[in-house]
């Protein structure tokens, strides 16, 4: 009984904010003070994928591209660094862990403001590359921490065995290390993707209105006051977040999730 009560309290508190999002996204007419829409409809969705389709699809594609490139680069840097941190003792490791944590938590606002002028000079402001670079400042360290957790449970003896059987270094990396750490790599990639996907302000500052990602479009929609469309875009925007959570819960199990955060 107590368990049921607690479960429903959790579910209620977490899911409640999604109720108005869902209602608005499928409403056609909904005046105050009606509790439910007077008329239901798919106008918002038709608008999102039809009328305003090009603008929205472009933003969607842009968001996916930026986040995917950021995630790939984050994993590329995160795997070796996570390996070093997870497997070896060395001096200055505590300091290093702090240095790597700062970019995740210090807001990208000041970093983006600082870099803007110089990216402008290098011709990288308002470009795809510039936005990826600013996203990397937070996403790559994040991937490092995920891979650190993965490699602190990694058994080097498998590599030793492969090597003693005559495997080359490259073979060890691709046929031992990557397969063994694959679930962790997937999670690191997903969460770097997600972190980049959710960036708003740093994209706005560096992208300078040229790189329109989904959050930038969503902010504009909130300004325009079209609630059904804003709700529909919010739902599109939240899907990868829930997918990432689902995949990581499946791959890592809930206990291992804790290591990721």
């Amino acid at each position: 009984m107590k368990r049921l009560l607690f479960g429903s309290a959790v579910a209620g508190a977490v899911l409640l904010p999604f109720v108005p999002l869902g209602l608005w996204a499928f409403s056609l007419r909904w005046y105050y003070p009606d509790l439910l829409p007077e008329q239901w409809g798919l106008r918002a969705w038709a608008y999102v994928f039809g009328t305003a389709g090009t603008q929205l699809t472009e933003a969607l594609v842009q968001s996916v591209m930026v986040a995917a490139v950021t995630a790939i680069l984050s994993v590329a840097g995160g795997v070796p660094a996570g390996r070093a941190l997870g497997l070896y003792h060395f001096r200055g490791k505590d300091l290093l862990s702090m240095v790597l944590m700062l970019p995740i938590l210090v807001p990208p606002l000041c970093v983006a403001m600082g870099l803007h002028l110089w990216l402008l000079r290098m011709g990288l402001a308002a470009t795809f590359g510039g936005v990826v670079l600013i996203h990397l400042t937070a996403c790559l360290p994040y991937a490092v921490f995920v891979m650190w957790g993965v490699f602190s449970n990694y058994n080097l003896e498998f590599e030793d065995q492969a090597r003693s059987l005559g495997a080359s270094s490259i073979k060890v990396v691709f046929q031992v290390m990557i397969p063994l750490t694959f679930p962790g790599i997937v999670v690191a990639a997903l969460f770097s993707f997600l972190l980049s996907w959710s960036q708003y302000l740093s994209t706005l500052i560096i992208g300078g209105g040229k790189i329109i990602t989904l959050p930038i479009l969503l902010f504009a929609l909130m300004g325009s006051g079209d609630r059904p469309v804003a709700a529909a875009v919010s739902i599109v925007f939240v899907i990868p977040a829930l997918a990432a959570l689902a995949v990581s819960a499946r791959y890592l199990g809930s206990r291992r999730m804790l290591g990721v955060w």
Partner: protein
Amino acid sequence: MTQPPAAFSDARTRAAPRPAAVIRLLAPALAVVLLLFGGGLALGLVQSLGHLPAAGMSSLSLEHFARVFADPDFFKSLGLTFYLSLTSTLIAAAISVAAALMFNTLAGRSRAIQFIFQMPLTVPHLVIAVATVFMLAPSGLLARALQNLGLISSATAFPLLVNDPWGAGILAAYVWKEVPFITLMILAVLQANGAELLDVGRTLKAGRWQRFRHITLPTIFPSLGAASLIVFAYTFGAFEIPYLLGQTYPMMLPVWAYKAYSDVDLLSRPEGIAAGLVIAAVAATAVVLAQGLTQAARRRGAAL
């Protein structure tokens, strides 16, 4: 957005083969952090000290910082930001302690509840901000519900919960987002080393409150503290939620900094950056304290 990770205990680490090998492994990550993050902050500092050749300013001075610190609006923003970050963190921490205890005893095995509970961790700030507007605005779902229940007579009788002076909407959105993170950090400790001590407490006839006060609380304190500091750092500098849910005056500091930075008057740009650096300094301090707490706890744990 997604929350930061905790430091890991290194059960199986070995001594490094060669320092050069470790450095090679760390090089790409370090290059990004030092060049882009460190470089960004350094360049920001240079600009906020007035070096802006494009605008014809080339000498360094503390003038912009002085102007920021002489601005009463800045202090109003700073005060508001401290109030909202601190309040949301404290509320979230209190709820998290209760939630962690309940999770530990009640819902430990239900995967569905665990999944739902973790959802706010990955939901982007912007989405919860939009949802909060739809929920708490004067024509939002809550006002509609109250009016249908006959508790208020019209939308104007509904209290202002969004863009309000007390930041109710901001607090609600942040608490929603932060509780799972703090709870999971506490839960990790509770599940690892809470049970035996509580049994000892029970054998010694300690009451419920005594067990909580003298066993559970000291056990979870380091991770509760670290998680709260991390959450505080995050809320102190996050932009989307206050931008959408905050009032126009005074603004939370990140919004103030961005407004100054993007002002048509190029001269207020260094002031925006200066405010951004103040935010960075506060957030960095909180992170350093959090790491100190975790590392101290880890050392103490290792000594036991």
